[in-house]
């Protein structure tokens, strides 16, 4: 469950975050500042606040929620797809921020050169900006993935802890502690720690290796 959610969230977020981050990084102005602030909002808000709003927005209590129910056929709240939507929003800053700094670090001279040579903005992005910022792409994916694995408050509010549908590892850990089942809790916690550690080690190892190769 946790894995499915994390993979789904990371996949969706990369698709959403790439153009968004490129747009934020490729200019400035009040509009971009506002969007950047909204993207960063999940960082400062308690996850429960976000979960609550999403619950209202996706459930039958509000107009957009009712519209969604009509389109999808069932309420998104307390379902896996609802959880996915929540995760995407909650982890958005973790996907977008590394990309924005990665894209901003790409010298604008490369972008201008590419345009001058007749490359469309899309081709420039694909074959110049993205390869030059590939390190931040990896960081973004890993952060999103691990952050989704570890999220709790939002999942509890929005997912409602339904076994087999919306129960993630972090929530099951919470349940086990509530039941004073420390042995099982310990196992779950260990799985989460080991998983995060292994992922991060692999990422740092790889990026260190690349630095060495490039000299």
């Amino acid at each position, binding site marked *: 469950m946790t894995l499915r959610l994390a993979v789904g969230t990371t996949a969706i977020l990369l698709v959403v975050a790439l153009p968004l981050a490129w747009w934020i990084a490729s200019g400035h102005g009040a509009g971009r500042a506002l969007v950047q602030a909204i993207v960063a909002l999940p960082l400062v808000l308690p996850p429960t606040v976000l979960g609550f709003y999403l619950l209202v927005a996706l459930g039958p209590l509000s107009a957009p929620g009712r519209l969604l129910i009509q389109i999808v056929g069932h309420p998104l709240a307390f379902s896996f797809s609802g959880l996915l939507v929540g995760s995407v929003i909650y982890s958005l800053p973790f996907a977008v921020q590394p990309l924005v700094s990665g894209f901003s670090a790409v*010298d604008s001279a490369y972008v201008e*050169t*590419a*345009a*001058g*040579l*007749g*490359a469309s903005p899309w081709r420039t992005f694909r074959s110049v900006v993205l390869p*030059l910022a590939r390190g931040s792409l990896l960081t973004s994916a890993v952060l999103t993935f691990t952050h989704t694995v570890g999220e709790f408050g939002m999942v509890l509010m929005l997912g409602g802890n339904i076994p087999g549908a919306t129960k993630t590892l972090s929530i099951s850990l919470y349940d086990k502690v509530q039941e004073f089942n420390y042995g099982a809790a310990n196992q779950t916690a260990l799985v989460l720690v080991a998983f995060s550690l292994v992922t991060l080690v692999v990422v740092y190892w790889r990026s260190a290796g690349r630095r060495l190769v490039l000299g």
Partner: protein
Amino acid sequence: MANLFRPSPPQVVAIYPHMSRLSVQLRHNVGKLQIDVDFELTQPWTILFGPSGSGKTTILRAITGLFEPDFAHIVSYPRLVSPTSTGITLIDTSSGLCLPAHKRGMVIASQKPSLFPHMTVLQNIRFGYPRAASSAEQDRLDKLTETVPKLFRLDHLLHRRPAELSGGETQRVHLARATMAGSIRVLLLDEPFTGLDRALRDELITDLLLWQEESQIPILSVTHDVTEAFQLGAEVIKIAEGRVVQQGPVAEVLAGERERLMDQLNAAKKNPA
């Protein structure tokens, strides 16, 4: 002393009757500098000459389409001008028309080479012409892929990365890449020879002139170097504080600058420091 101004072996005197023309009207404020120019490129090689800070680079960038000026009307007239041909408007701010940079064919080689570091030399020079749309195009592309590396003496470097090149090699790849752009209508060079030694400069000028003979593409370059302007023997547009002061053959427009430089050199010869 006189040979300082003797045009180097390759002389830019050949006039290509069917070469395309470019008409430029431009007004733009950058800080305190007000750029207001109106000129036409009619010769194979034209030089924008002026001191640093006179707006030369800004003019090139505006022509390329790297930013939108306050006012601009730039038209490129195709090579074979018939009485009815009207030319391609690249930008006309008064009618709100503005072609994006990648559709203009105004290929700029900026002062800093900025070769794409993650690509080989071959990938770099092919960047502006990734694929051919038709079989005739394919022939042209094949021919370019064969001749350009030869012309710029890059054959043995094609599979290297930019980080493995010397300064002179980097500059050669930089220019080769610009000349290979498939959409090119005019080649714009922003101080392409600054910081290079005389031998390398002569080499690059020869390369570019040979390329021009083949391609019939006009070149607009920017310099504040009197010697370079005389070496190219090109048409000169003299710029000062954002305005065109004079346009004509180099011997005419830069006669004063040449005098001054000669005097300085003579004085230096008489009183060596």
